[in-house]
């Protein structure tokens, strides 16, 4: 597991920053002067500290002398930072967040923790707070992100709660990163208002996709899982509106104890009613947040729903839809549908078990969530 935040940083010189500072990481001590103020220099060896950088992070433990201001001893956990990464520095608590890592397999921006649903398996439990600073952080980080980045994501909470600012974020992503894909995770409910879908379409982002969860083929069960009345209807209408505006949509299905037995029927429902969506992701459970506290009512061994999974994948694939299986180890997936499995877990929270050592399929297999290592299928078995 890779840590993305740390408070274990210590000052080496006077910290002159009054407000949080967002900057791009460089390892180049000879960076041209005009660029230094917006950059964060990470030094892994040597005690000579060049001047003029917005922030200097010492990724070693040697003493330094004559240090210019804004020099910080970087915590061990964050010493992986390298060129083109983007960080946020909090001068008051000496916290550093890695907002963007160039080598990550996925980079997502949490833009709010507020949500209008309350999913029983939510890995990011909602908080009722004013966290508009998250929007500002993303807007500040976007210009610093490497232009060849393949894709970034917007997550939450529920990002569309920001209304016009939500559209601002999409516009900014297009402006600063015209060659980067944008994946937005949303419960889709606010798109029941056609205007919001139109606004998204009018940005004409070059490669945007909205990932929307649908957990059941009928309203009572879906509404229960997201703990909100009318959620099913709102979500369906949202999906229809987005497609009316030709915005790409992905349907995401998290599979657990409450809905695995209806998975075949849900696949049939999607294949007949939502045939036009661009992708369907069938996802294993991540035991974080509510999913962890509710695990007794949620956890099921994926091995035990392999028949339902098989039926669902075959139904969707036969209908000509793009399907993927996320977050499920290969040994728990029936052989005939293993080709749909994707290495989907963000690298920073991705791990394997001891039982996986020596498994011939380890390179292709997505492994586990770091948070899931303590509650594991009984049926994990390495391939010879």
């Amino acid at each position: 597991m890779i840590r993305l935040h740390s408070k274990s940083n210590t000052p080496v010189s006077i910290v002159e920053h009054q407000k949080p500072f967002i900057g791009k990481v460089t390892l180049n001590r000879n960076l041209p002067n005009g660029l230094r103020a917006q950059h964060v220099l990470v030094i892994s060896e040597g005690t000579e500290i060049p001047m003029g950088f917005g922030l200097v992070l010492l990724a070693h433990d040697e003493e330094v002398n004559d240090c210019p201001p804004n020099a910080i001893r970087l915590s061990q956990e964050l010493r992986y930072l390298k060129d083109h990464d983007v960080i946020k520095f909090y001068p008051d608590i000496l916290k550093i967040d890695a907002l963007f890592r160039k080598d990550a397999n996925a980079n997502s921006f949490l833009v709010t923790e507020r949500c209008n649903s309350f999913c029983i398996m939510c890995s990011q439990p909602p908080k009722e707070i004013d966290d508009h600073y998250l929007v500002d952080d993303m807007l500040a980080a976007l210009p610093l992100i490497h232009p060849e980045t393949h894709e970034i994501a917007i997550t939450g909470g529920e990002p569309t709660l920001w209304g016009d600012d939500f559209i601002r974020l999409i516009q900014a992503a297009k402006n600063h990163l015209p060659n980067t894909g944008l994946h937005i995770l949303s419960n889709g409910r606010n798109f029941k208002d056609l205007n919001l879908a139109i606004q998204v379409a009018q940005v004409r982002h070059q490669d945007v996709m909205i990932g929307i969860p649908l957990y059941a083929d009928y309203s009572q069960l879906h509404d229960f899982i997201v703990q909100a009345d009318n959620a099913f209807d709102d979500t369906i209408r949202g999906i229809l509106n987005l497609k009316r505006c030709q915005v790409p949509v992905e349907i995401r299905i998290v599979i657990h104890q409450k809905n695995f037995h209806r998975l075949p029927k849900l696949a049939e429902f999607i294949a007949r009613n939502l045939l036009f969506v661009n992708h369907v992701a069938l996802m294993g459970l991540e035991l974080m947040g509510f999913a962890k506290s509710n695990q007794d009512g949620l956890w099921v061994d994926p091995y035990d729903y392999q028949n339902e999974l098989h039926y669902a994948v075959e139904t969707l694939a036969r209908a000509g839809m793009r399907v993927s299986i996320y977050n499920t180890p290969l040994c728990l997936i029936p052989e005939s549908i293993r080709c749909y499995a994707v290495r989907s877990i963000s690298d920073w929270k991705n791990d394997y078990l001891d039982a996986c050592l020596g498994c011939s399929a380890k390179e292709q297999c997505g492994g586990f969530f770091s948070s899931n290592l303590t509650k594991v299928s009984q049926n994990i078995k390495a391939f010879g």
Partner: protein
Amino acid sequence: MSLLGKKFKLIEDFDQSIAGDYQLLPSRFSAIDKNRYVLSNEVGEYLVVTRLQLENFIRKKVPANTDFYYDLKSKHFLFDGDSNVAIDLLALKYRTKAQRIAQFTALHLFVVTLRCDYTCQYCQVSRQTDDKHAFDMSEETANKALDLVFKSPSPAIKIEFQGGEPLLNFSLIRYIVNEAKQRNLLSRKDLQFVITTNLSLLNDAVLEFCQQHDIYLSTSLDGPEKLHNGNRPRPGKNGYQLTVTAIKKAQDYLGRHKVGALMTTTENSLTQPKAIIDTYLENNLDSVFLRPLSPYGFAVKNQKAHHYDIDRWFEFYKEGLDYVFEINRQGHHFEELYTQLIVNKLLSPFSLGYVDLQSPSGAAISAIVYNYDGDVYASDESRMLAEMGDKKFRLGNVHTDSYPDIWLSNTLLDTLESTVSESLPMCTDCGFLPYCGTDPVYHYATQGDVVGHKALSGFCSKNMKIFKHVIQLLEDDTEAREILLSWVH
């Protein structure tokens, strides 16, 4: 017990409907065997139910919180107070099914000659003559026909050369292909060509042309040599040998997927389905079409006989299909094409393009025939009927009539309108309606009326038997189901 934390409400708290109180959505049902019915909705989704389940459903007695209730809800057979998207989704699905009609005429048959070197016993149209001019289509006629072809709004156009034996007028085929491709530079349709031919005149020049222009060949192979030659005599009595040699040659030259064969079923075929299929296997063909007995010609005078012939044909079909399953079980992918069509119809959200099983009828709005003399017919069967003396479904002539004259002719519009399944007795409440079609020409030929009395109709009887059989297989036979699903495209 939900086993969730205290701040989470139970599933009952999210049900805004009154338990057990629901409304019915449009649906139809028909028995598939002694104990079960198929219940289908307005857009062809279906459930197999018992009589008791059916009665409970209609009398609104299905208990809430049961899988059956939720199956009915999710497949849009009922709706309740907890959700109101059903209407929007059904409307969207209905529009999807209806889309085919807007795309309009995709299949255009060109009868380039009536001359033929065979004298098949079931053929209504071919002429034996050496007089090229009497029964060949002219370039002028072909041009006029092509004018009409490219007026079709369909994004995909298939031009099928028919006859007689089309290769007897191969120079016109060359002309039409080149001319069509030339015009297509502007129209930019997905243009495909097929030649239906007995292959006796297949030579390198023809093969080279077919390869150059990606043309498909469709031939007739009725079964083993004796059966084939018995059905399809020609001078020299070597039809079978010529055909299989030519099939191989064409497969090698053009590729197997470019060569197909159809069979015509006669009395003699009914006793040997396996032998027929074996002949197909021997000749490296990947599919067989176990066609029903044609009503045209002999049976028109004897409508009842044709109706009872359906039972015998159905035994032939079942035996053939069982053998096809056996072939698949042994690892060889081989399809029976009518069954494949039915399975696709049962499971697809779209309307399929098979002309003879559509409502509104596929006549003219799906396929059209340009005869050698420029006469335009609503379907191939319409042309056969004309050859037998009844020109009821002749819609006009390419030399004298315009596109609106033909496609908006009263004959056509009246026929289409009066035969839409949803308005016909028996069809209107038949559970198989979404998968079936209406065949005005067949019913006119056999009963003298485009609508026909379905209880007396061989078309209805045949289709219902097949629907029941296929639905039962999908429900009860896991192996057959797997095989059938592998035929879904």
